[in-house]
């Protein structure tokens, strides 16, 4: 059968591409309304203490300033802690903006100035005078490791580290051992779009909230519970999100501020944070980790200990899975893990692209490289020696794990077999070349998601779910799935997201969206198939009478009898002949938990990197990256490649460039702008080669999707650090590896 509506697995262009290249895509701050006013936030200049006085007199004297909200005049909001809990909140006492005179972190918002124009609000904000009584603050993790303690409470996705066997005994007995400590500072997500919310206010007291978020339902439910509003009164939308990488997993304070002002002033309000204020949001936590590995002379691992200490805030215990990977990736009987926190006078950290794995796998995969050198075994060979077909921490086989193929294919493409293991062996003038590799690993998660589908008599299909597209390609892959399932041209299919009135979807994060929402979309379209078949059976003399849905196929806008494709009917004709206006269905897929619980479900990657180090000046250039990724079925190689490439760029950035520097004098992130918080520019990024090693996996979900948002980044920083060692003979265990560390 000739089929032009097979889209899954094809490199189709983004369906939102036209909107994005013409300026038609409207992000949170791109909305306008009559009488729209603007809010500008005033941020605290100290890290800890009390507000003694906020003098707003001068600011309020400016004509056009409507109100200045501070803790002195904000009241009547929700009382209970759980009202401030959001879908990604860590355990603790969730922060209440403008409701306390206590300063808990630097840049804490202390006032919101609302005025007729943005410029006026910005000027008035500069005239607000806040006097503080400052208290001594603690922001230094490494100086306070003696305060480390186990985390309190639980957070979704957090797995308690688990030990097994007898590490101490095995480590002592191991002929070859390694101890190493690794560190990285804080990193802020810094998506290109600064966090923004526009609230449109209507005469009847209802509001429409355009928010920057990875979960529009999270936005809506937070607004409802904090401000005591009914769902009817709050329409929440986020059709376009200018990147997030985790920063949109929790409602950020511009949302609170914009809604607060709108309800109070009964006006439409726009609040956009400044780039400087983007450093007042959550961040990848400052972490120190230690690894101790014992092995036999032949490289077989006998004992692994992985301990990590991260910073959190004074009011919430942010947790992530840092050390767990060491119990999963390699075959090893004796594993000891610990994960502790130190409360610091900062804001609460927040999930940032591949949270935990980026950190823990940096430590583990650098340590494996160090061990390989101690053993005089090729680093790739050491991975093969300890390859594990089961997740040792749960004693479960993987639903699929093509990591071995990833190693082989990436190594071959890279030319790894040509590598001389000797450090500094590739020297040309002042340039040293180095090759390094590392493994990546992430979870293949499924989260709850529903979808609705509407098929109309004109042959058009509209599918929707309250999920998000933060640049990940959700619009496109869902359109592909829906179009292929019903055999329609993609142009006839519209996918809707970022609207709280759509069926439930969990936050877009953790690489779970393609699998979770994709399954719901496919199921909804399968339900439409059944309805279409039922309708077709009602048509007089229908050849489809007596057939089950398994006996028909959908392609090119038609339904066929699979056995005898000459028997077909146009879907539009089914609707017309049965006088049907539209078909509406909503799907609620339920994962096969009994089947899934027998397996570990993960994605894997093998990443090989070439660096060039200017030996005199210390500058590092990543000249070549080859990454092979095993992430189940790839729905769209074009957008998936972009995801992996983006992850690799993030890996390069974390390895070489970005760090939010805390000045402990002030307890403040001091390089809080894009000029001094370095992320790579175009010239920093060179050859990136992505290989997908497809896996067949009917355990994770019916389509075998595992997700690609995080896996691209995991392991990249380790591969770069390992390549730098190979180039220079210098083992740098602290990120980012700036040039001063190589002088």
């Amino acid at each position, binding site marked *: 059968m000739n089929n032009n509506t097979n889209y899954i697995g094809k490199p189709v*262009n*983004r369906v939102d*591409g*036209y*909107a*994005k*290249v*013409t*300026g*038609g895509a*409207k*992000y949170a*701050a*791109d*909305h*306008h309304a009559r009488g729209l006013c603007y809010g500008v936030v005033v941020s605290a200049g100290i890290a800890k203490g009390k507000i003694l006085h906020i003098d707003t007199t001068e600011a309020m004297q400016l*004509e*056009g300033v409507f109100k200045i909200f501070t803790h002195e005049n904000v009241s009547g909001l929700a009382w209970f802690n759980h009202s401030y809990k959001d879908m990604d909140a860590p355990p603790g006492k969730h922060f209440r903006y403008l409701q306390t005179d206590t300063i808990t972190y630097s840049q804490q918002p202390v006032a919101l100035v609302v005025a*007729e*124009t*943005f*410029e006026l609000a910005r*000027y008035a904000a500069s005239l607000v005078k806040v006097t503080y009584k400052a208290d001594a603050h603690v922001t230094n993790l490494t100086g306070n490791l003696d305060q480390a303690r186990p985390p309190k409470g639980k957070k979704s996705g957090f797995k308690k580290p688990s030990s097994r066997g007898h590490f101490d005994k095995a480590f002592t007995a191991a002929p070859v051992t390694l101890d190493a400590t690794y560190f990285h500072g804080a990193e802020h997500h*810094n*998506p*290109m*779009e*600064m966090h923004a919310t526009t609230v449109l206010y209507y005469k009847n007291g209802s509001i429409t909230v355009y928010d920057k978020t990875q979960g529009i339902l999270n936005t809506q439910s937070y607004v409802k519970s904090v401000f005591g509003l009914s769902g009817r009164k709050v329409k929440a939308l986020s059709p*376009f*999100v*200018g*990147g*997030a*990488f985790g920063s949109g997993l929790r409602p950020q304070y511009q949302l609170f501020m914009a809604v607060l002002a709108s309800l109070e002033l009964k006006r439409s309000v726009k609040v*956009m944070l400044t*780039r400087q204020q983007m450093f007042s949001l959550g961040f990848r936590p400052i972490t120190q980790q230690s690894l101790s590995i014992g092995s036999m002379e032949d490289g077989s691992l006998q004992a692994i200990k992985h301990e990590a200490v991260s910073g959190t805030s004074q009011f919430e215990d942010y947790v992530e899975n840092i050390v767990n990977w060491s119990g999963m990736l390699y075959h090893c009987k004796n594993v000891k893990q610990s994960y502790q926190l130190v409360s610091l006078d900062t804001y609460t950290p927040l999930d940032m692209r591949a949270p935990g794995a980026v950190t823990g796998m940096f430590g583990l995969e650098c340590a494996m490289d160090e061990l390989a050198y101690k053993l005089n075994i090729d680093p790739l060979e050491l991975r093969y020696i300890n390859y594990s077909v089961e997740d040792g921490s749960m004693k479960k086989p993987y639903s699929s794990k093509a990591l071995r193929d990833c190693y082989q294919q990436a190594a071959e493409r890279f030319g790894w077999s040509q590598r001389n293991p000797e450090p500094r062996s590739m020297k040309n003038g002042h340039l040293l070349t180095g090759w390094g590799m590392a493994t990546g690993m992430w979870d293949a998660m499924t989260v709850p998601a529903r979808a609705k589908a509407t098929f109309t008599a004109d042959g058009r299909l509209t599918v929707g779910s309250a999920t998000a597209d933060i*640049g*990940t*390609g959700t619009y496109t892959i869902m359109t592909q799935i829906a179009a292929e399932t019903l055999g329609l041209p993609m142009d006839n299919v519209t996918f809707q997201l970022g609207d709280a009135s759509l069926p439930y979807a969990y936050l877009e994060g953790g690489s779970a969206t393609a699998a979770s929402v994709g399954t719901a979309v496919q199921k909804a379209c399968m339900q439409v198939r059944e309805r279409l078949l039922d309708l077709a059976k009602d048509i007089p003399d229908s050849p489809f009478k007596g057939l089950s849905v398994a006996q028909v196929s959908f392609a090119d806008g038609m339904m066929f009898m699979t056995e005898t494709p000459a028997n077909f009917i146009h879907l539009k004709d089914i609707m017309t002949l049965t006088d049907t206006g539209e078909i509406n269905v909503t799907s609620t897929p339920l994962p096969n938990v009994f089947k899934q619980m027998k397996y570990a479900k993960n994605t894997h990657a093998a990443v090989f990197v070439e660096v060039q180090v200017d030996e005199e000046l210390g500058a590092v250039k990543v000249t070549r990256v080859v990454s092979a990724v095993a992430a189940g079925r790839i729905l769209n190689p*074009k*957008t998936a*490649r*972009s*995801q992996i*490439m*983006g*992850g690799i*760029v*993030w890996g390069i950035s974390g390895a070489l460039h970005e760090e939010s520097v805390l000045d402990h004098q002030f307890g403040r992130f001091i390089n809080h*702008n*894009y*000029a001094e918080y370095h*992320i*790579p*520019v*175009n*010239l*920093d*990024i060179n050859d*990136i080669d992505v290989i997908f090693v497809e896996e067949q996996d009917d355990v994770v979900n019916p389509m075998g999707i595992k997700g690609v948002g995080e896996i691209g980044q995991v392991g990249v920083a380790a591969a770069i650090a390992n390549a730098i060692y190979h180039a220079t003979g210098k083992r740098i265990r602290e990120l980012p590896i700036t040039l001063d560390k190589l002088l």
Partner: protein
Amino acid sequence: MDQVAASVMVDQPTHTITLTVNKITYELKVLPWVTLLDAIREYIELPGTKKGCDHGQCGACTVLVNGKRINSCLTLAVMKNGADITTIEGVAEDGVLHPLQQAFIDHDAFQCGYCTPGQICSAIGLINEGKATTREEIQELMSGNLCRCGAYPNIVAAVQQVNGKL
């Protein structure tokens, strides 16, 4: 000529200026501290041009002024009185995409799309300048536009496809 009624208060040093944006001439009454970026986004209501830092550190606000690419966040609207400005909304002509726009789609040269208007305007400026021929020159001369999603190799591929062929 479209009249844009920017908010004006009594006793403020308002300036009446004209800006030609995407071939339409707007008469604006602006206060001197309104940046060109905010004038375009909030007063003329063309939100395609993006604010990514407001300090000239990211390039998201790049527009073409008299054919040259600049950061619209670091100039005042009043300083651009009489200027001819092209924003992303004016890059396609009569609904036909500019070759760069199509190349950006074909090469998947964006993910979230937020830096894209600035990248495309910057690339048009780069092509107008005529200084970049090699891949590395394009990379260097596109380095004033940050992309946090990391689409750089695809952006370079898109620009390479169009560069020198207009």
